[in-house]
């Protein structure tokens, strides 16, 4: 099945003066992008190795969005940890007895260590995603040269 791409997709792909058709029924079961220029010459812009050149940008954007999502979360958990710490620090002022406060102070220590663990993992994932973005950009550059 071949569908003509809508205007949004055309703009997303940065192609203005060509008709673009999107096929999702090629032999490999993967989608293919076909363009026709004004002379009606057909160009298959697959790189032939499995991944489509024109999809690199989409994949990179998805990775960047994921990175941003994790970064926002990283900040958020720190903020909540601080707020929780503040709450525990003010428990006695709110009238709680010491025997109620102490166990929660101990629980907070464990919670805080777990937040540290999540924070470390988020930093590692951020770096790994960044490495993948760089790898994709490198492949993209090679694709342009070729």
């Amino acid at each position: 099945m071949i569908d003509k791409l809508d205007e949004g997709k055309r703009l997303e792909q940065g192609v203005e003066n060509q008709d673009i058709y999107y096929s999702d029924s090629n032999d490999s079961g993967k989608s293919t992008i076909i363009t026709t220029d004004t002379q009606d010459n057909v160009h298959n812009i697959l790189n032939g190795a499995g991944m489509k050149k024109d999809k690199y940008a989409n994949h990179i954007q998805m990775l960047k969005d994921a990175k941003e999502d994790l970064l926002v979360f990283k900040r958020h958990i720190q903020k909540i940890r601080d707020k929780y710490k503040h709450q525990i620090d003010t428990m006695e002022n709110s009238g709680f007895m010491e025997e109620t406060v102490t166990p929660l102070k101990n629980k907070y220590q464990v919670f805080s260590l777990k937040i540290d663990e999540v924070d470390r993992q988020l930093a590692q994932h951020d770096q790994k995603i960044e490495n993948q973005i760089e790898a994709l950009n490198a492949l993209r550059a090679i694709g342009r040269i070729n």
Partner: protein
Amino acid sequence: MENNNLQSLANQINWCRTTKNYLIGLNKEIYSVATNYQNTVDGLRNRGYMADLLPQIEEMNREFKKISSDLIGHIEKEHLAYIEKQSVGIRGALEKVMRS
């Protein structure tokens, strides 16, 4: 004296409510980020992401799922349950004071 007691119990109930809201909000946020993570991995897989790079992303997703569900469980079992228990006790004390 009774007014002070009432005020103190009201403060404690307020403290419990605020703290529970922070922690429930955090759990929701963790769940939402884990869902987005999974959606990203599914999206990349469905869009023919590079076979050489996909396994690493899938492994990261599994790691995040594990650490996030551990944190959610910890918050629920250790913190929210404890605060809820205090909250029930305070409400009971408040009712007693109101009745007397």
